[in-house]
């Protein structure tokens, strides 16, 4: 066989791909990014945020400053200061709350171990990705007020997961109801 036939055969493949890219969708997979965006899958995760119920971000935080996520975070990017006194949470139960809750998302590696270990369903993964900042040092250090996002927002980004979480929380609340409310919560 003639030397060069293999090269020509390869060129035919390239040509088919080039021409095919005008007609077949799976040969042209590029998306023109700032104008077009490919949708993120439901499970997509980026950086953690804190969920709050009701409309008040300060009063409705689910976090009770138990510091489990701070301890388990592999790159140690969470910093929590527990409040000195308890105040009623969104269900009216007296609870501790985080006086300070910082996540340095320039250190965070999006492993979502904080989400897994949280017993209160208080911390979840966000999907935002355009996070570049002009400042060099603490612009990506997220404070409590930046991290707090409503349960409605959570339902918007992870609908299936949020529905399961809500059902679990409701079931847990139902379970606790028959017992006298006088028992103080642990912690």
């Amino acid at each position: 066989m003639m030397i060069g036939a293999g090269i020509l055969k390869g060129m035919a493949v390239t040509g088919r791909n080039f021409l095919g890219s005008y007609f077949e969708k799976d040969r042209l997979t590029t998306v023109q990014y700032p104008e077009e965006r490919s949708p993120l899958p439901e499970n997509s995760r980026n950086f953690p945020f804190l969920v709050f119920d009701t409309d008040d971000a300060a009063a409705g935080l689910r976090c009770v400053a138990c510091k489990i996520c701070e301890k388990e975070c592999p790159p140690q990017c969470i910093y929590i200061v527990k409040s000195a006194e308890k105040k009623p949470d969104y269900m009216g139960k007296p609870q501790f709350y985080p006086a300070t809750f910082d996540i340095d998302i320039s250190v965070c590696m999006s492993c979502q171990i904080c989400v897994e270990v949280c017993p209160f369903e208080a911390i979840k993964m966000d999907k935002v990705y355009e996070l570049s900042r002009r400042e060099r040092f603490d612009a990506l250090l997220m404070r409590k007020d930046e991290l707090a996002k409503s349960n409605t927002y959570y339902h918007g980004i992870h609908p299936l997961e949020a529905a399961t979480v809500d059902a679990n929380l409701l079931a847990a609340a139902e379970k606790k109801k028959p017992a006298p409310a006088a028992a103080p919560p642990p912690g």
Partner: protein
Amino acid sequence: MSATGFQELAQAPPRITSRFDGELLEVSMGPQHPSTHGVFRMNVALEGEIVRKLKPVFGYLHRNHEKIGENTSYLGSMPYTDRLDYFCSMTNNWAYALSVEKLAGIEVPERAEYLRVILAELTRLVNHTSLLGFLLSDMGAWGTPLMYAFREREHVLDLFESLSGSRMMCDYMRFGGCRVDLPPGWMEHARKIVDNFPRFLDEFEKLITGNEILIARTQEVGKLSAELAINAGITGPGLRASGVNYDIRKVDGYGIYPRFKFRVPLGDHGDCYDRLMMRVLELRESLTILHQAMDQLPAGPIMNPKVKLRAFKPPVGEAYGRIEGPKGELGFYLISDGTGNPYRYRVRPPSLINLTILEDMCLGHTVADVMVILGSIDIVMGEVDR
């Protein structure tokens, strides 16, 4: 086409005899060389164009992985394993989970075992496809094959993202199972991608296999004898290309691999061409495993309910878990002293150990061949330097 006509042209290295004698020229290739797959440097002593000495220099990407592992909880090391070989986070997760499971004697539910096999084989698809692209781009087929390969790889990464949330840093497996169950529609999506994959493979083979330039650049280049491969501890496709039948999926039968029917492709010559073709053949075998695993996937839990991930303290002891990663034998050696952190955490990286024979393979070849040989070993610097 049969390549025999051209094979004669490609035989008997070194094809260029040096006109220079005595004086050696020392060239430092890397660490920013585009073909070194990351930050890897080679000090090459050249006689004319022929390599007479080669000294690999690495450590530019050292991140203290093992020491971090000793100072982190068992769970906390899992996301770090993603960052070893960042092309194959799923298999890294599996190897680490396997050794922790051995250490603590944890059972894994049936469904999780199947999911692990499916994801590990998908990872093999990702790794081998991108290797084909990279290797060709090292040879000078700059761009085109790499883009075709990356297009296919992206389909599989979409699967990973919709399952685990991240394209590359999956952090999906846990000791005692897997983290989340399949989202609705995932399996249909995966089947579509697996069914479409042979089409890409056929096209890719048409693009490269008969190509005279590729044959001239790879056949008889970087020959590795079976004896040297065994003595140097080479594993994975590089070992099998030299004709040694050693696949840990068959030898150890970890997970549920004994249930699947697949063949282990073996090479004849141990040159770069064999190592390249080994990847294509392994891709086809991976597809048969994927088809079997997807058909047999049972329902059930994906996590052993007895395992407490937080404050996980395995009993005192040691364990070595190893799997057949896409690059070779990936093992984790753990010593537990009964506390929440491992006393010793050691990775047996296939990339590093496969890289040790680089000099033996390169001697007598030209500088341009060094890149092809390095590309055919299949290294990722994240795993070499750790």
